[in-house]
């Protein structure tokens, strides 16, 4: 009996010691080296980061810093990533550097989960090469920068040049949505299909707002959010106009309604029907050239640049001009609770410069947010990405802040009413205003 008790006590002691050791594990080792972690959740980014990390460790060694990097590679959807990283940030267990979509930054920064980067950026010579409009767009509602944007892009309408030409449809830039709708109706009459996909409904998650609704809204109305007061103007005139546009596309039978309600709506639309030429027009960012339809993309289109081209968004209302929507893409953010902020920032700066950045831009299909990348290979060999970089200068962007997630939620729900036939544009707009007002609360609504 005594022997059994002894064994039991030993086992308990070992387990307890192991648990405590695990809890207190420090990423600084006794030899002076520091191990930091970086999180990536898209396979193409994982692959490109893997290639450049050894270069960072070598570069740091040259500077006398022994920094090792652990890549936390976790392939997730956008929603899964957000759910996971939110829990990690709250628990203080997030990796030291997180590569996240810029649309997540206001919510995380607002909650105090991210460290402000202003002091680091002021001392970094690479910061001078960032285009001024991006520097400005990175500033959040409280005047600080919380994520170093490393890739950008232009959201346009990608169209199947080959299919439309074969159908005898005009492929010149449509001046207005009326022009474009007339062409799409013609396509529908000839093919019987649904010729255009724009993110809509709840299945597309936050992208219904960021990649569907907001780019069209921003081209006709830039007063829907005031960065100074941090308030949303739900009565801003563009909202009703864009809901009417969605409604018109739906009532003309131009949207692939059933596919938009698929749990992964981008798959039947962007990854099956657009590559097959059955959907001829898709709202899409620069990443379409690589991440979606490039040779190593999710659904490669052979001879992509010959078969596909882009239009700017047509003008929605009288007096508007066609435009491209500038997206901030992804940025590197450091959790406020990270114990290795300095080292993580060194990694962020390394990955946002020169060849490491060029490598990532090409693999994910993005344009550079800085002016010194045009000659850096492999980015220099990508004419479509270079063109996107130039187009960024003239594209539209409306920075927003706290409440963007609630707006995204209300827009998704209201556009869902349209694509399920439950509401027309006016009714969907009314539902949006009610929902958004409830969700935002009195402090965030003008």
């Amino acid at each position, binding site marked *: 009996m005594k022997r059994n008790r002894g064994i039991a006590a030993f086992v308990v002691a070992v387990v307890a010691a192991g648990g405590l050791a695990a809890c207190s594990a420090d990423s600084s080792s006794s030899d002076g080296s520091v191990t930091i972690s970086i999180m990536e959740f898209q396979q193409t980014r994982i692959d490109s980061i893997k290639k450049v990390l050894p270069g960072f460790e070598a570069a740091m060694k040259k500077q006398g810093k022994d920094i090792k990097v652990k890549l936390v590679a976790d392939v997730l959807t956008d929603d899964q990533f957000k759910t996971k990283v939110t829990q990690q940030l709250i628990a203080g267990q997030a990796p030291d550097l997180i590569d996240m979509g810029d649309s997540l930054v*206001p919510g995380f920064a*607002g*909650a105090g989960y991210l460290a402000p980067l202003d002091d680091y950026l002021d001392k970094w010579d690479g910061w001078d090469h960032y285009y001024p409009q991006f520097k400005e767009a990175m500033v959040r509602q409280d005047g600080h920068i919380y994520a170093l944007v490393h890739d950008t892009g232009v959201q346009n309408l990608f169209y199947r040049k080959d299919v439309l030409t074969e159908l005898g449809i005009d492929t010149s830039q449509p001046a207005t949505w009326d022009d474009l709708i007339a062409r799409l109706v013609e396509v529908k009459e000839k093919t019987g299909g649904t010729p255009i996909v724009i993110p809509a409904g*709840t299945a597309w*998650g936050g992208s219904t707002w960021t990649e569907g609704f907001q780019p069209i809204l921003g081209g006709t109305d830039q007063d829907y959010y005031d960065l100074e007061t941090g308030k949303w103007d739900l009565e801003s005139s563009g909202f009703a106009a864009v809901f009417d546009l969605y409604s018109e596309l739906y009532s003309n039978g131009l949207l692939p309604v059933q596919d938009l309600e*698929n*749990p992964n709506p981008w798959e039947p639309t962007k990854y099956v029907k657009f590559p097959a030429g059955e959907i001829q027009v898709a709202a899409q960012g620069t990443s379409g050239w690589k991440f979606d339809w490039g040779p190593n993309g999710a659904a490669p289109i052979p001879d992509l640049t010959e078969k596909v081209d882009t239009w700017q968004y047509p003008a929605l209302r009288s007096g508007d001009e066609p435009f491209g929507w500038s997206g901030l893409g992804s940025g590197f953010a450091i959790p406020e609770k990270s114990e290795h902020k300095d080292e993580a920032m060194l990694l962020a700066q390394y990955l946002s410069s020169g060849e490491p950045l060029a490598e990532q831009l090409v693999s994910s299909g993005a344009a550079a947010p800085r002016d010194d990348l045009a000659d850096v290979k492999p980015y220099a060999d990508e004419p479509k990405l270079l063109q996107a970089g130039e187009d960024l200068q003239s594209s539209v962007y409306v920075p927003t802040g706290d409440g963007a*997630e609630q707006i995204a939620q209300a827009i998704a729900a209201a556009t869902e009413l349209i694509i399920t036939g439950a509401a027309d544009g006016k009714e969907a707009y009314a539902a949006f205003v009610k929902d958004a007002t409830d969700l935002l609360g009195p402090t965030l609504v003008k």
Partner: protein
Amino acid sequence: MTSITDAPASAAVGIRPPSPKRRSGRRTRHSALLLLLLGPAAVLIAAFIVAPAVYSVYLSFTNTQLTGFAARDPQFVGFDNFVYLLTNADFIASIGHTGEFVLYSAIIGQTVLGMVAALILSRPWIRGKGLYGAAILMPMVVPEVVASLTWASVLSSDSSGTLNQLTGLFGAASTDWLQVVPMASIIAVNIWRGIAFAMIMFQAALEDVPAELIEAARIDGASAVQVFRHVTLPLIRGPVFLYLLLTTISTVGAFGLVYLLTQGGPGGQTRIAAIYIYERALQFSQIGIGSAASIILLAIVLILGFVYVRLAKVEV
């Protein structure tokens, strides 16, 4: 008439009763043993069930969010979250979808088919009971994720999907089952998964039904259906209602199976309450509203449980 009383064993063997001091020592040891045996479980339950539940009730009265400036300073909002939810069409619809899902998959599907399986297996003349029983038990053994992925493959919109291959034999075109009949699909999958548990419970209950009562009813000329309706069923009413209670609770809380198959879509047609809560609390970061929705769901389950217990007079 002789009355027999039990003499204390100590008296029978001539042993003196233990002194109060010894009795007290034994009681102390007994209490210590109880504490040792129940203590860890009680601590775990308190830490991982009671405390989170209490915290959830607290959260339901606040506007707590996981992101945004509101996350820094949550405010007490009284019953606002409950009022918002009970006037929110999406939440009401999710409760309706949950009711539909529970009624058709758990209360009707699993219970009826589980009973049929148990009745068949209780027939003495049935051969291959082991194989039959194992086939029905299989869905319960398979992990939820594996079961979901298997059914995603069976119901795939692709022409290579199992169901499409079957319907293709009759010349039917490929159908995206999870898009066209999403609720019927998840109900079918949940029935498939839950039959085993129902069968096991009903089998055990049927074994307790005295064979002589059945035989007597048969001799009196009752048909098989009449025997089941008027003899067997009343005798196993307790286990049946207990099963209904358990399956209702577990189906109301079902999440993984539905989320992996449809994610609540298309167009919210399979957005049952658990998915609504997940979306609100974790995708939209509104923990306060998500917690309030959980509390409402808990209240509904408690009411249903109370009704079941009253109907069956089951001691739980």
